């Protein structure tokens, strides 16, 4: 029985290694993308491009971190874009009414709105037994509709906002835009929480097998609720950052963003079936999508291709993830059989 295993061949080994360290594969894709665009248009490789990419990606990657926390538990939160829109307009309106409001209060207000929106989602999913797809699809509509009813065709402009607040979107600290620093801090904190803290590990346990998690004494409902509330709070914060970056907000702010967020997470190897994925992966997914979007502009490809490419990437990402998972399972079986 000394026949070599299929998984011992070098190319297969590499494939399996990528399966275990998905983030490595994502970084490789990212580097390849940057090098390709850079080789065609050398001007692409500049710190300005880097800044643009980071600024463009900051908000999406924040949202996709919140989404990861939810997706890990086999749930989904489609309402993030509506929550973002609501929070952005609400904070804008607050600034119009109280121009001297401190920035910290503005952020607190945005996060509070997000917390409330997330709590409603959590209540429906945990207490109402409504599947999260249905619950958050409903609130996607309801929050957005409430936004329209409230705003009534109005708009907040950059001229209504204090310059120190707009500075969040334009100012830099040590060359890094402040907005990116804020997003980065949240991402790192949430990533450490998911990776190192018992509460964070519960997200994985619940997603891998909810029934086993319950029998092991985990409070599954509470954990799911925390996931939705966190996702809401992050969307609220993202709304404030959106307002700071773009200055102009109306009732349609952020419409359709939820798909980009899910796309980033899925491309970043966060499994929609739960239990698998990291914040780092989701962030890399958002970066890949962001780099592609800027590359298309730099390469003078029609921007109409962007969405098609994004869609193709999602399909490719989930297909290759599935193929990898299958190959890994096969190797485990072979190992078992050969002792």
């Amino acid at each position, binding site marked *: 029985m000394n026949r070599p295993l299929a998984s011992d061949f070098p190319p297969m080994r590499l494939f399996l290694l990528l399966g275990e360290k998905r983030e490595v594969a994502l970084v490789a894709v990212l580097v390849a993308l940057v090098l390709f665009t850079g080789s065609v248009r050398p001007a692409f490789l500049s710190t300005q491009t880097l800044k643009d990419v980071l600024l463009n990606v900051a908000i999406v990657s924040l949202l996709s971190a919140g989404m990861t926390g939810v997706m890990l538990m086999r749930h989904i939160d489609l309402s993030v874009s509506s929550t973002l829109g609501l929070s952005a307009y609400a904070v804008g309106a607050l600034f119009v009414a109280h121009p001297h409001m401190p920035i910290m209060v503005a952020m607190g207000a945005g996060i509070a709105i997000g917390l409330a929106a997330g709590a409603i989602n959590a209540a429906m999913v945990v207490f109402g037994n409504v599947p999260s797809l249905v619950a958050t699809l409903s609130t996607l509509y309801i929050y957005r509709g409430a936004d329209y009813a409230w705003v009534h065709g109005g708009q907040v402009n950059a001229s209504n906002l204090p310059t120190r607040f707009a500075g969040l979107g334009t100012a830099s600290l040590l060359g890094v835009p402040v907005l990116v620093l804020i997003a980065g801090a949240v991402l790192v904190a949430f990533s450490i929480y998911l990776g190192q803290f018992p509460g964070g590990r519960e997200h994985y346990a619940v997603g891998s097998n909810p029934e086993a998690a319950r029998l092991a004494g985990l409070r599954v409902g509470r954990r799911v609720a925390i996931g939705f509330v966190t996702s809401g709070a992050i969307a609220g914060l993202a709304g404030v950052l959106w307002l700071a970056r773009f200055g102009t907000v109306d*009732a349609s702010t952020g419409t359709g963003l939820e798909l980009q967020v899910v796309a980033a997470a899925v491309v970043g190897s966060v499994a929609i079936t739960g239990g698998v994925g990291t914040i780092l992966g989701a962030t890399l997914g958002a970066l890949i999508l962001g780099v592609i979007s800027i590359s298309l502009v730099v390469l003078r490809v029609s921007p109409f291709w962007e969405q*098609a490419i994004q869609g193709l990437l999602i399909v490719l990402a989930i297909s290759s993830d599935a193929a990898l998972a299958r190959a890994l399972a096969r190797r485990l079986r072979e190992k078992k059989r050969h002792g």
Partner: protein
Amino acid sequence: MAEQIGTTPPAARRSLHLRWEWILVCALFGSLVLGRVLSPYFLTSDNISDILAGITELGLIALPMTLVIIAAEIDLSVASVLGLSSALLGVLWQAGLPMPVAIGVACIAGACAGWINGWIVVRMGLPSLAVTIGTMALYRGLAYVLLGSHAVANFPGAYTDFGINDIGASFLPQPFAVLFVAAAAFVLLLHATTFGRAVYAIGTNAVAARFSGLDVARTKLRLFVLSGLLSAVAGVIYTLRFTSARGDNGQGLELSVIAAVLFGGVSIFGGRGSLGGVLLSVLLVGVLRNALTLYDISSDTLTIVTGLLLLSSVLVPNLIARVRAVRDQRALAAAH
């Protein structure tokens, strides 16, 4: 006996289900009364014709979506297929193809788009939610690639009249006839054929269905093809009704379709639901929207109504079941 508490017995479940369709009938009647109260124009034949024309696309896509959801899958790409077929129709007509050929190609393209969805779901064994989120972006993107931000509007009058005129002297719009025929065919397919029974069996328990000798993969594949085909037909009708082929036609419609299907009493977990309920719910959504629009509420604000309908479709039966479980428990305790 103790383990029976908390799970709804089958008989009670069926009566609950029947009751849901009656709730829909009452809600429909209520919204008709509401519409009459809000606007004297509401019950005119012109307005009823408007309502029926307005639900054509929603209804056409809701038909296969009902089957897809009963089979415990989902198709989020339907509105993108609508946009893709609309854009394709515009491009082909502009390129000088005769209208019947262009319409045929657009419909076949839709069926192919559905087949791709089904093939990935069935062969790769991936969740349809993830797959169709991807193809939703892909197909919409292809529609943009085809037409960019242009619109094609110079369709021949004979065809655009179809989108506007009524059947003979009645108040039934011509596109509604397409929905009527399609609905009849789907009702037969789901409720009177072995294929339809297979759809329920697969949605209830796919593994058991496979061990019973049903070809689960092929049935699911066919459902996705039907979904793509009907979405493309809806795209052609949409284009003719508004005399405008655009890449962004029907954006966001997938959510309204799913909302209408679930509000029609179809379980998101598969295995349960009927086309009767879904058709009632499509009609109800059309009537409510129209009534509130006549009352001068903007369509953007109306999304609240769609959201509330969707939510209540799951929340209300859940609450009824919970109340009933508590009542049963009390009755049992009293008996002891």
